[in-house]
């Protein structure tokens, strides 16, 4: 099957899957996307059949630069891994050994996927657990922001032992969200009810601070230089946290009420922000204090997750189009990778060199985008 035929068959399969009654709005958007792709592919086939000479000329003179550009940015191969049903994978993290950990928020477990064997193990995080975030620590272990039990959790990757640091009881329920490690091995975390905090695993000391503008702290990241930044979804700003004093300084994105949801740093310490309300991806340069923002493609985009890969390409999840989007800051162009299932609902992205992982909370799958 040639390239065009494959594309037509794939698009037809998706379009036909979406036709029965009961398909949701996300399904319809995905069907519309593939119908457009189908029309383009059919038109290309007609041209190729009716105008072979023209097609040859086009292929000879036009396609090499296009494919050259793709090769430079890297072809992307996608692979999906089915997980046990009902877990609702919220966040994902891949270790240096290639093992992938994910939070099964709905079932209160931490999942472990071995991509080589496709084997999935589930580790219970205890009664009342509803884990939100997971990251890999400098010790190679998965660390979890355990929203259900108001605690930071480490799971030993070998013994599967669960170790828990509870937040001070006086703080009440903080709705723990995401964590990041600083350069001194301490865990920084956000609580959506209006706090951020720091845990030193070596001493067990935990400090929790009120966020400057109350509710909202969501995504958090560490720059290569060791600075800590978090995003405030409800507060529509980002904040830089002094790793020594814990003081947070708010920084205003240029778009009012943008809903800064998650943050990630590129190799130069510039902060990339996924803006839920505005549908923008924006970038803050701490050196120049300058912002720049780009609107994601589509009629009414919503940018949920953001992750910057080892080549400083920016990956986002676009909720409205049910797609992962890659943004190239050099060319300022977007490339969309729609999910092959409606309602993927990707809430976070994380990876390692050559791999970008996205948990599809709505389909109980982990999807990897391989860029090597």
């Amino acid at each position, binding site marked *: 099957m040639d390239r065009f035929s494959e594309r037509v068959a794939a698009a037809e399969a998706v379009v036909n899957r979406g036709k029965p009654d009961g398909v949701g*709005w996300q399904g319809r958007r995905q069907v519309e996307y593939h119908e457009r792709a189908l029309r383009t592919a059919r038109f290309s086939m007609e041209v190729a059949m009716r105008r072979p000479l023209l097609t040859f000329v086009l292929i000879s003179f036009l396609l090499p630069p296009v494919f050259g550009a793709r090769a430079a940015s890297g072809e992307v191969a996608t692979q999906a891994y089915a997980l046990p049903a009902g877990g*609702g994978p919220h966040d994902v993290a891949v270790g240096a050994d290639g093992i992938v950990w994910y939070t099964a928020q709905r079932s209160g477990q931490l999942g472990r996927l071995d991509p080589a064997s496709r084997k999935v193990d589930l580790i219970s995080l205890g009664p*009342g657990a509803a884990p939100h975030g997971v990251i890999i620590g400098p010790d190679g272990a998965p660390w979890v922001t355990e929203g259900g*039990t108001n605690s930071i959790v480490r799971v030993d990757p070998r013994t599967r032992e669960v170790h828990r640091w509870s937040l001070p009881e006086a703080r009440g329920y903080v*709705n723990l*969200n995401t964590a990041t490690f600083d350069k001194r091995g301490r865990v920084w975390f956000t609580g959506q009810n209006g706090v951020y905090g720091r845990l030193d695993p070596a001493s067990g000391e935990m400090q929790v601070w009120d966020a400057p503008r109350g509710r909202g702290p969501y995504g958090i990241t560490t720059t290569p230089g060791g600075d800590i930044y978090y995003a405030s979804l409800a507060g529509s700003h980002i904040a830089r946290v002094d790793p020594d004093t814990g003081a947070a300084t708010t920084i205003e994105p240029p778009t009012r009420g943008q809903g800064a949801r998650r943050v990630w740093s590129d190799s130069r310490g510039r902060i990339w922000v996924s803006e839920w309300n505005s549908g923008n991806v924006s970038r803050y340069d701490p050196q120049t204090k300058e912002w720049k923002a780009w609107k994601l493609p589509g009629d009414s985009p919503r940018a949920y997750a953001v992750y910057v890969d080892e080549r400083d390409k920016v990956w986002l999840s676009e909720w409205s189009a049910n797609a992962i989007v890659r943004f190239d800051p050099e060319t300022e162009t977007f490339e969309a990778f729609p999910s092959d299932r409606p309602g993927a609902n990707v*809430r976070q992205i994380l990876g390692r060199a050559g791999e970008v992982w996205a948990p599809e909370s709505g389909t109980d799958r982990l999807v990897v985008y391989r860029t090597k």
Partner: protein
Amino acid sequence: MWLLAAGAVTAAWLPRTGADPARRGERVFQRCFACHSVVAGEDGLPGPNLRGVIGRRAGTLPGFRFSPAMIEQGARGLVWTRATLDAYLADPAGFLPGTEMAMPGLSVADDRRDVIDYLQRSSQQSSPTPRRTP
């Protein structure tokens, strides 16, 4: 309504005995606090203001950008009653596929009852206190 905050399947950390019903509901609402308010005029949060939610048609609060799924269900006649709220809070994604509310659900019926009581009571008060409770 969408992001009643990422919370647990049960508010296991809450003291369920000895606390007065009003206090229990307010504490369960901490699961919702990050995204919702019951204070009149406190808008601009990730979720819609829940003051007066009972009796409201789904997806119709002026000024809030609801998911297409929520708007569609409202157009089909979904109205928030104690019963529909209870079903939604028990399993948001199952009750309303396409909802943007991230919370996995409150599996304990008492928690749902308490928080619905709180929403109902707060809507009747002239000015409930906006606060994060310990």
